[in-house]
């Protein structure tokens, strides 16, 4: 998977996890915080499960809890995919 395809997929999943419901399509930037995108600590658990399912990866608890921005999530997925390839 190309990095940009992965990035797009992460963004799509993040937007799906706004508890206020489906959000209008918008451009998500790496710097955007999860809180600004409506993802609270409880929703982050659900988002983590979605990322694990979608990318067939495992994300450990502390790593997921440390994520505060879209860029953090992308880095987490990237690292997990690299581990899986090795």
């Amino acid at each position: 998977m190309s990095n940009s395809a992965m990035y797009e997929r992460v963004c799509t999943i993040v937007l799906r996890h706004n508890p206020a419901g489906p959000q209008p399509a918008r451009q998500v930037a790496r710097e955007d915080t999860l809180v600004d995108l409506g993802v609270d600590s409880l929703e982050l658990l659900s988002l983590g499960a979605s990322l694990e399912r979608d990318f067939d990866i495992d994300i450990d608890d502390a790593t997921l809890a440390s994520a505060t921005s879209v860029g953090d999530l992308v880095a987490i997925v990237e690292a997990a995919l690299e581990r899986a390839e090795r």
Partner: protein
Amino acid sequence: MSRDDIVITGLGSMSVFGAGVAALWRGLHTGRPAAPPAGFDVDRYRVRGVYEVPSAAVANLPDDDYAVRLSVAAADEALAQAGLPDRQAALSGAGLAFASTSAGWHHPAEAFGATAPTTELMPLLRKEWPAVAIAARNRLTGPFAVLSSACASSTGALAWAVERIRSGDAPVMLVGAVDVLTEVVFAGFHAMRLLTGERTRPFSLGRNGFVLAEGAAFLVLESARHARYREGRPLATVLGWGASADRAHLTTPAAHGVARSVRAALADARCGADAIRLCYAHGTASPAGDAAEAAALAEVFGPGRPLVTAIKAATGHTEGAAGMFSLVAAVHGMGLGQVPPVLYADDQDAALGDLRLASAATSPAPAAPVLVHASGFGGVNSSVVLDVPAALATGASAGGDAADPANTQPRVLLMTNSDDRTWRAEATGAAGAYGSAEVPDPAWPRNPPPDAQCRMLGEAVRTALACLDPDTRRLARDGALLSGTEFGAQAHHARMYADLAVAGPRAIEPLDFALSTFNLPATMAALALDIGGQVETFLGATGGVEALASACHLVATGRADAALAVGHDAPENRCWQRPEEKPVPARATVFAVGQRGAGVRVAGVRRLAPAGTLPELTTLRVAVEELAGADASVWCDAVGLGAQETAAVSRWPRWTVVCSEAGAAAPLDVHASVVERVARGEPAEAVVVSTGWLAPTVIIRYRR
């Protein structure tokens, strides 16, 4: 009898350290390694270790259902230590208070509706079953209830039992809890990222969750007079209890909620904060939970605060049974003059303040009175204060406490009936048909969003609040929301079970688990409607009626100035059904109970052990006559009686037999319609008898 004269005379444990309190106590000092569970495959989970009861210990037990085996072993030990062989407990009219969150789910395919259960298996799928089995085995005919208020269930069960002895309903109460390891619960906590597979490290910097565990623990609670006359040896005195709801968040505990619960327990115990020497904390090693609890202890106790211990480091988290293990450890340690250490606490989290954690080096100081605290999902808290037995503390012989007749009679109180409007509110489905400007719509949390049952319950409670005058409304919010349910929120578990089977642990939606405890609809309603008093859930068809009886008791005894009681259920949560079972309406029925208003008085309550396990009809008729005389008009909800018994009852003069639908709301509707008759004076007084399958019989006498 002085109000505080309630003692503990026996302890029992079947824990992850094997059979017996002695094994538990040794284990609290050593801990044990975690290992993969025997019952399900954890290869696909990030976390693999759990604590199970050693199979060698279970193998020694008589063959029976697993949850029953664990429970019976612990109950027998407690009764034996108390010197109460089963016959004597039976003759004393002893009762049973029991807590469980997971019993029955160890038969997941049948419990969650994937496979049709056999008739023989059906009772074993219910959380009430270990309690029903123990009541039958020990012929416990007294008050009976099964509570399921998440991880605060056990302390809640003890509190309920204390109230039964205080009000003279029974001189002896067996109190216990069991929880068993099941994959659905493991997968749920795993998805919530609350588990570790290695070590539970409460209050440490590196805390990263708890090891999921199982076990059963019991104790014998007794009036001091009863213990003295039969020469039973008191191990501890129960001074008081308190409870609260956080008013904050469903899954993140709040320090102020914990603090309110602890303060309520201290007030009930008539014990100053500075007197407490030791605290058995809930301590689940969750980053947020431990922080809230530490902050609460700092808030209540200030500088010079008590020593704190937390046994989950050793035992793991036994869910609903966790508080009972803390209570058993607290009483046993009190007898030894010792405090179990907080294991693995070498890197105590400085951010939690100067918490004084017990360690192996802690000198055995006089460590009483003791506070035992438990918190649960939904933001519920429950605390108990224990002390050394009075005779031991003072060196004087106890005696001469004259009986207070007021304590042995049910109190009279009024049901709130403001402005001649009915005090009963009903909501069917999720429709908000009772708009009231005075009480705004429930402020549902954005996350997790309420499910249909939460919404239904919230609408009904809001309607009840709207019927009250502003003062009573405020008092009710601070008082209690007690609920009863037969089927809980099991649709969430059933979905988790199905998801697991199809796609494994990653398929589990964490928010499903957050919504899944049996107490959750009530705690969600409490959160949305700013209710901060005790929130507790009683199980079974008569659970809503017990909630009403307990709410009346809280008000009658001055623990609350007003309180709400609700029975609720919804068809999607019934995963299987008995052939004779009626439909479950989606309904929540609410009563408000208060001291003011010109409503109907509750003139007395009687509780009998579950119908069907005892020679029932004579006991029932005698109980009703003792409560209301032989001439009372009686409405009997016979849903828990067999066809023959129902026919017999319907021939009794002045008895009217009804048979309500399934779930915990419909039985409360019978009470509501009789209360309406009594309010009109047709008749001026009446008795309602509620029965249910595997459920205690609850009898309430109403008077105009």
